[in-house]
């Protein structure tokens, strides 16, 4: 299954890109993070502290345990600082 993966703020900077298409067999968001971590050091660095990472599935905030289902877009970012 193919998903669009987006990165924002310092996650984008550490990984070095803002979006990519990823071929994955992950069941949950957490599984996808594991796959990405295993790829390259920059991913492992970006996802080193998952307490500092938030996730949205098709533009809805979700916990990491959430099933990917047939989501088309997964986004990772630090805690938000709007306002």
């Amino acid at each position, binding site marked *: 299954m193919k998903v669009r993966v*987006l990165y924002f703020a310092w996650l984008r900077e550490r990984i070095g890109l803002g979006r990519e298409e990823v071929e994955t067999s992950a069941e949950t968001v957490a599984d996808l993070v594991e796959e990405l971590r295993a790829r390259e050091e920059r991913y492992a660095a970006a996802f080193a502290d998952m307490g500092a990472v938030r996730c949205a599935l098709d533009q809805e905030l979700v916990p990491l345990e959430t099933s990917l289902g047939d989501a088309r*877009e997964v986004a990772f970012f630090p805690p*938000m600082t709007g306002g």
Partner: protein
Amino acid sequence: MSNPSPSPAPQVSPRIVVTEADFDLGAEAARLEAGSDTGAVVTFTGRVRDVSGGLRRMTIEHYPGMTEKALRTIAEEAAERWPLSGVTIVHRHGALSPGDRIMMVGTASRHRDAAFAAASFLMDYLKSRAPFWKKEETADGMGWVAAREADEAALDRWRDRDAD
């Protein structure tokens, strides 16, 4: 098992603006004042604050596909909790300087308590639930603004009790 009665759909259509441009607070407040039954309008404006005295620039990144949806969800939630005749959220992104306006929320209601509570609620949710990230450039370099634990904790007060 009895079904809870559905809450009435809010009458109000929130005004959501995500923009690089500055906004006109007076004009936004005037929009909220429209309607013969609006007695109270509350606005909150957030501004780039130069905490250290060395801030050169602030850049706000956001998640274009999600931002407006998230803001609308927060505004609709407020309109379900309080009897509002108007709700506005304006949030800027891009490069800002110290003193620049960052965002505003505005609420209109018959009574002041609802307008105040709803504006405060909007701010609390917007701080932790809308996909914006601030980066600051000072003489010492660039850095992402860290989320404050107090901002996340602020949401608890809206969970613990019913709105009224």
